[in-house]
């Protein structure tokens, strides 16, 4: 059938009539919602959706407002990256096995891509997966893995053929994070806390059924994951903007004001407003079915604005800016700029231009894919991975 706003609303109303959240266990309610196709309406029937247009999800969410949710902040990697990748590349068996507990939050996912030696140049990664019968044996080290310590499954990119150029010798797996040989260590950051982990993989055996996509096709599968990552970062809901936080400090502390700071703050307010308008225009383009290239730039602008604003805030606070709220080693499940003080915002914002694609790589992408400027001469495209200089 063809879904529209009315029919989705009707479906949601019928579901609610049959499932009273007040009378049900939270998880049972979520499973039922998934089975009713109201999890992500644009997914196929039987996999939590209705095969409806993506924008009708807002209708389902509106109708089900106030009912138990799946705590999206805690399972962002599953929702934002694992689900679309599994949907696009998974076998039917994989889709049936993974999508439901992913959406309900029963199973947390993490992403095992980056390595100490492979950051911006992800395709050069060295974690090996060697076939032994129907199993793959994985050895290597991954880093910057958020949620690894709570995750049931990991999206793993590993090298299965070192004898071909780097992009061609990769294969994509679902890694069982409970398998023997998986060791997760927290990675402490400059803020004092550890959002991320290092993951050591030593002789980890994965059954062949956990391969996602074809052997050697891992780079293409990973591209889908990464594209969804950047969409997810750009579209993250914010309670308040960094600009509002700093403006409030300015308003409440008249004794701290100087002309120097005032002029700089006005500039940043304009930048913040321009970024808001650029993002609004981008959303309009997306809604009209004409995704514009502005998306690649939003993360870049967002990182710079965050860094400048948080730097100004610390300076503006003077004596208070010399303090810090808490260096205690902690393992937060989500990042919240607003629940912490200025010093934390300043330090955490430094990561905005590194995580999920450095600002340098994003500028390359804009220059090459948007402006059509020629790529740099490359020495690593046609050389077998094992022969690359290191």
């Amino acid at each position, binding site marked *: 059938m063809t879904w529209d706003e009315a029919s989705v609303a009707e479906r949601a109303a019928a579901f609610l009539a049959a499932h009273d959240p007040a009378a049900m266990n939270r998880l049972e309610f979520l499973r039922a919602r998934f089975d009713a196709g109201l999890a992500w309406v644009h997914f196929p029937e039987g996999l939590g959706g209705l095969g409806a247009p993506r924008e009708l999800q807002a209708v389902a969410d509106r109708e089900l407002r106030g009912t138990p949710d799946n705590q999206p902040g805690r399972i962002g990697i599953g929702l934002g990256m694992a689900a679309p990748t599994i949907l696009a590349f998974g076998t039917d068996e994989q889709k049936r096995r993974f999508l439901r507990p992913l959406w309900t939050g029963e199973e947390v996912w993490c992403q095992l891509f980056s390595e100490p030696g492979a950051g911006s140049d992800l395709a050069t990664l060295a974690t090996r997966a060697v076939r032994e019968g129907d199993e793959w044996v994985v050895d290597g080290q991954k880093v910057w893995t958020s949620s690894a310590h709570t995750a049931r499954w990991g999206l793993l990119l590993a090298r299965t053929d070192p004898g071909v150029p780097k992009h061609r010798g990769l294969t994509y797996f679902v890694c069982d994070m409970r398998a023997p040989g998986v060791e997760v260590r927290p990675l402490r950051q400059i803020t004092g806390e550890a959002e991320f982990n290092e993951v050591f993989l030593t002789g980890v055996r994965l059954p062949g059924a956990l391969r996602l996509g074809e052997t050697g096709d891992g780079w293409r599968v990973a591209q889908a994951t990464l594209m969804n990552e950047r969409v997810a970062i750009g579209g993250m809901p914010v309670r308040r903007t960094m600009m509002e936080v700093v403006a409030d400090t300015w308003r409440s502390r008249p004794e701290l004001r100087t002309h120097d700071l*005032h002029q700089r703050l*006005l500039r940043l307010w304009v930048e913040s407003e*321009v970024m808001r308008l650029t993002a609004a225009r981008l959303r309009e383009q997306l809604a009209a079915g004409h995704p514009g290239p502005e998306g690649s730039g939003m993360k870049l602008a967002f990182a710079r604005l965050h860094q400048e604003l948080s730097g100004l805030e610390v300076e503006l606070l003077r004596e208070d800016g010399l303090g810090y709220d808490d260096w205690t080693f902690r393992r937060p499940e989500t990042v919240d700029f607003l629940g912490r003080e200025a010093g934390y915002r300043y330090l955490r914002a430094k990561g905005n231009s590194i995580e999920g694609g450095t600002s340098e790589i994003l500028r390359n992408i*804009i220059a090459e894919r948007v*402006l059509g*400027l*020629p790529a*740099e001469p490359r020495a690593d495209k046609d050389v077998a991975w094992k022969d690359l200089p290191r």
Partner: protein
Amino acid sequence: MTLLYTEVEEELRAAVRDLLADRCSPSAVLGRVESGTPYDAELWKTLAREIGVAGLLVPEELGGAGASAREAAVVLEELGRAVAPVPFLASAVLATQALLTAGGEAAGELLGRLAAGEATAALAVPFAASPYAPPAPAAALGEDGTVTGTVGGVIGAEIADVLLVPVRLTRGTALCAVEASPAGSAGGTERVAPATSLDLTRPIATVSFASAPARVLATAGGPETPWVREALLRGAGLLASEQLGIAEWCLATTVAYVRERRQFARPVGSFQAVKHRLADLWLEIAGARAAARNAAARLAEAPVAGPPGDDAAVAVTVAVAVAQAHCGAVAVHAAEECVQLHGGIGMTWEHPAHLYLKRAKADQIALGTPGDHREALAGPADLPAPV
């Protein structure tokens, strides 16, 4: 409200762009800049009458197109992209907005002439004036109903048939219309003296009146000149679209050049530092597009000025000020990068880059500097200055 371009707007753009491609190439513009007639009257006639851009902001009942600031903005993008030497901003935006604010029969009749392309007008106010501190009238209305005084830094006066002059009264101010003498005629009571201008494609002039016969279009009781303020504010909002057009030309031309130009056996555009600078510029321009579209849309939503301080008026001021604070600097940055990344060739008179640099720099000063517009945001953004 949408920040995208509508189909109608895209059609208008295509019509203007096609005409300019035919009649307003960079070399044609360059050939004209040092001549005695910096404005291209023939091109303007075609734009005004055939494409009908002169009456975009004029209501249908007065003979105009009844379009909005959104359409005028699209025209300005294209005129900026071509640094076209036509008085669209001077006549169809600034003078037209002053007349729309003045209202009344005489202004209405004049708007009809402008919309039909029968006459071109100029607002005798310095182009450098800020909407947040509109200048007091530099001319006075005599008891005999004639205007006397001198105004410098006016755009579009050389080609104007009618000069709109804000004047002092014994009490209050007025907006007057003075018909220009036929070109070449001697002994007129008004005089337009072209000044050597930084912007070769939109020069400024000094306009003098010596007991020039005038019609009074509107009066105001206080020291303010509401027609001027409104024209400057709305003109500033639309100027952002011209600045967007300038910046887009500069980026596109630079990208095309560095893709082709080779040094060290590589295209210059394959060097990472060049790529990163152009990526940053592209991002600034994406922001300029959103901000300029937003200003145009806000102006279109509130075609008539409300009382200052009401919500719509504040929304208009914020949109205009944000657009100008951003776009004014972006156009200059784009033009400066265009000159620099063209290397020596960008420093030559024969390459058109300098026409854009000069226009962008003049536009940065026009209708309030970026600093003026930022300052104007302190109130609406609730970011009070130090005491």
